[in-house]
C-alpha cells in the first residue's frame, strides 16, 4: 500500500502494536515546561522509577514567566515556586534546561525549532497542545497530558492509537496582505473546531510549498484548533535551508546524509487519506474571529453570520456582538502580537513594515512579545525595536504572556483585544477579556487605526 508522509514516520517509530489496542510509539524528542511537568516528576518519584533517556529531553520556562524585569526574582510566589521546581527537577535528573534569562530561552514551540532541535522525520511530544507547530518540519509532533509526560519519562514511549489521516490542500495565488495566519483561520472557519478530531492533518499544495518555515509553523500550530492531534508539511529545500547551521542540527557530512533521508519523507502518489479537503487560495482574505472558539472566524469585511444555536448566542453575548453586524470600525483598546502562533522574526518584520513611520492610536495599548530571546535579539539587531518604540508600542521580554494570561499580561474584563494568538476562549487573555484572533498585519493595522479597519485598501 502507498504510504503517506505521516505513515512513513509513524511506522518507523512503532516498537510494538498491541493486538486490538494501541501502538507503543517511540519518542525521539520530549520538550517540557514548568506548568505541565511537575506532577509527572512527582509521579515517577512516588513510583521509584528513574527517567529513561534524559538526553532526549529539553526544558524551557515560558508559560508562567514575567515579560518585564526577567533578571529580578519573580514577584508571584506560586510562579516563582513552579520555576524553582522545574530547575530542581531538571538538575536532579540531568535534563538540559534553558531557563529564564538563558540566551536559548523562549516559548517551547519557538525556541526548539530555531535551535534545530526539531528535525524532519522525528517524533516529538510536549505537554502542550500547540506542539503541533513542529509538524512544519515534517515531524510527527503532538501535545500530551501530564500522565503521558510521565510515561515518556519512564519509557521514552507512548501508548497511542494511530490517528486517521486528513489532507488539506490549498492551491492558487494568495491575495496581497493575506498571511499564513489568515490561511489557517480560513480553513478552521470552513471546517469547524472538531473537524480534525481523531486525525493527523497533512497540509499540501503550492500555498504551503511557497511559505517560509515561520509561515508553516503558524499553520501547523493551529491544527489543534480544528481538533486534529497534529499537522505536518513535507520537508523540502525551504526546510533544509532553514535547518542548515542551526545549533543542534546535524553538521557537514551528517547533514548531507540526513538530507538524503529527509527527501524521502513525502506522501506517495496515490496514497489514501481518510478525509481530504480542497481550497482555492484566491478565496482567502484577511480573517478575524468574532466568537469564543477559533472556528468562529470571518473575512474582515464580512458581517457576523446569523447564529445557528444556543452556543453561538452565548458566544455573541459574551463578545458583545450582534449577528449580521460588521466588525469594521469597532473601537479596540488592546492589541497583542505574540504567542507560539505569531512571535517569530517574520511576524515582527511584517508588523514593523506596516507600522513604520506611523503612530499607534491614543486609545490603544499595544503589546509586542517576542517568542524567544533569539527573536528579541534579532528585533534589536534589525532595527525593528526602534520602529515599535517610535510608534508607541510596548516591546516586552519573551514568553507566552497575554496568550494565556498566567502572568501579569492580562486584558481587562470587557475589553477587546485583537490578538495574534490561537485561542479566543472566554477569559483566555484574562477574566472577562474578549479576544479577536487575527494576523500580525491585522493586529498592527488595528493598533494604528484604534479600531478594526479594512487595511488591505491601504497596502502598497
Amino acid at each position, binding site marked *: 500500500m502507498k504510504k503517506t508522509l505521516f505513515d512513513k514516520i509513524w511506522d518507523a517509530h512503532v*516498537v*510494538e502494536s*498491541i493486538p*486490538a*489496542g*494501541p501502538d*507503543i510509539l*517511540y519518542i*525521539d*524528542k520530549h520538550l517540557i515546561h514548568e506548568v*505541565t511537568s*511537575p*506532577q509527572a516528576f*512527582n*509521579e515517577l518519584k512516588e513510583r521509584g522509577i528513574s527517567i*529513561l533517556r534524559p538526553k532526549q529531553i529539553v526544558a524551557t520556562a515560558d508559560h*508562567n514567566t514575567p515579560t518585564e524585569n526577567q533578571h529580578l526574582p519573580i514577584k*508571584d510566589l*506560586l510562579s516563582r*515556586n513552579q520555576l524553582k*521546581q522545574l530547575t530542581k527537577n531538571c538538575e536532579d535528573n540531568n535534563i538540559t534546561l534553558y531557563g529564564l534569562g538563558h540566551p536559548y530561552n523562549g516559548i517551547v514551540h519557538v525556541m526548539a525549532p530555531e535551535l534545530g532541535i526539531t*528535525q524532519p522525520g*522525528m517524533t516529538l511530544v510536549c*505537554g*502542550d*497542545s500547540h506542539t503541533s507547530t513542529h509538524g512544519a518540519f515534517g515531524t510527527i509532533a503532538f*501535545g*500530551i*497530558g*501530564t*500522565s*503521558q509526560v*510521565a*510515561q515518556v519519562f*519512564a*519509557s*521514552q*514511549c*507512548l*501508548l497511542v492509537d494511530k*490517528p486517521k489521516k486528513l489532507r488539506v490542500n490549498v492551491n492558487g495565488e494568495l491575495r496581497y496582505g493575506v498571511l499564513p495566519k489568515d490561511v489557517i483561520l480560513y480553513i478552521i472557519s470552513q471546517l469547524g*473546531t*472538531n473537524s480534525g*478530531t*481523531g486525525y493527523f492533518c497533512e497540509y499540501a499544495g503550492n500555498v504551503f510549498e511557497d511559505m517560509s518555515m515561520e509561515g508553516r509553523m503558524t499553520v501547523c500550530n493551529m491544527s489543534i484548533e480544528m*481538533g486534529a*492531534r497534529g499537522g505536518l508539511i513535507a520537508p523540502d529545500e525551504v526546510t533544509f535551508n532553514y535547518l542548515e547551521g542551526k545549533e543542534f542540527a546535524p553538521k557537514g557530512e551528517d547533514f548531507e546524509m540526513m538530507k538524503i533521508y529527509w527527501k524521502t519523507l513525502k506522501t506517495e502518489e496515490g496514497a489514501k487519506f481518510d478525509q481530504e479537503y480542497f481550497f482555492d487560495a484566491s478565496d482567502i482574505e484577511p480573517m478575524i474571529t468574532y466568537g469564543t*472558539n477559533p472556528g468562529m472566524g470571518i473575512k474582515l469585511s464580512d458581517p457576523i453570520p446569523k447564529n445557528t444555536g*444556543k*452556543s453561538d448566542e452565548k458566544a455573541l453575548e459574551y463578545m458583545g456582538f450582534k449577528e449580521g453586524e460588521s466588525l469594521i470600525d469597532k473601537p479596540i483598546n488592546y492589541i497583542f502580537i505574540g504567542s507560539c502562533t505569531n512571535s517569530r522574526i517574520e511576524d515582527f518584520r511584517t508588523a514593523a513594515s506596516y507600522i513604520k513611520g506611523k503612530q499607534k492610536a491614543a486609545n490603544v495599548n499595544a503589546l509586542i512579545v517576542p517568542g524567544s530571546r533569539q527573536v528579541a535579539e534579532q528585533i534589536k539587531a534589525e532595527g525593528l525595536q526602534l520602529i515599535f518604540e517610535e510608534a508607541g508600542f510596548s516591546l516586552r521580554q519573551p514568553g507566552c504572556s497575554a496568550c*494565556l*494570561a*498566567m502572568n501579569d499580561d492580562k486584558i481587562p474584563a470587557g475589553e477587546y483585544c485583537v490578538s495574534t494568538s490561537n*485561542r479566543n*476562549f*472566554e*477569559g*483566555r487573555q484574562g*477574566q*472577562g477579556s474578549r479576544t479577536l484572533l487575527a494576523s500580525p498585519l491585522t493586529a498592527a493595522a488595528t493598533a494604528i487605526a484604534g479600531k478594526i479597519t479594512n487595511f488591505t485598501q491601504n497596502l502598497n
Partner: protein
Amino acid sequence: MEKFISLTDTAVPLEIENIDTDQIIPARFLKATDKEGFGENLFQDWRFDKAGNPNSEFNLNNKKYKGSILVAGNNFGCGSSREHAAWALKAYGFKVIISSYFADIFKGNSLNNGLLPLQVSPEFLKKIFTAINSNPSEKLHVDLENQLIKITSTEASEKFEIDPYKKNCMINGYDDIDFLVSRKEAIQKFEEKTFQF
C-alpha cells in the same frame, strides 16, 4: 488508579457545546506543582461572579442537580492539553462525563485518571438532557463491562465504544506507565536497531 466497573447515579446537565479546558480550569490556577485542590476551582468563572458569589444560574450551583455524572454538549474538553481539567473534574467528584464528542487529548487525559469519557449519539444525548430536565433526580446507569448506558426511568439505552485496552485498564485499575515499564526490553531492542536522532 481506582477501578471503574459500573455506576448508577443522578447527573448534572451542562447543555453547552465546545466547553473548552480554559473554562473547566482557567489558566491562573495552573501554578500548582501537585494535583491537590483543583476541584474548588472547577468551572471557576462560570460558577462564581466577579465578586466571588456563586452564580445561581449555573447548574453546578443548582441544588436540583447532584451526582457524579456530568452531561455536556457536543465537543467537550477542546483546547489545551492541561490534564488539570481532568484532575479538577475528578476532584470535584465526577466519575463519568457524557457528551456526543470529546476532544482527543482530553479523552486520553480522562482515561489516564480513571474518569470515564462516555460518548453517546447526539440523539441519545438529547434524550438524556430531556430526561434530566423533566426530572432532576433521574438516574443514569453506566455499565462499562457491557459498554451500555441506560436512562433508568424509561429504560432507554445505548451501547458505547471504548478502546478495549483502555477498558481493561479502567476495569482493573492499571495504567499505561505500569504497562510501558514492563516493555522496557522491547524498547531497548528497538533503540538498538533503529536510527537515533
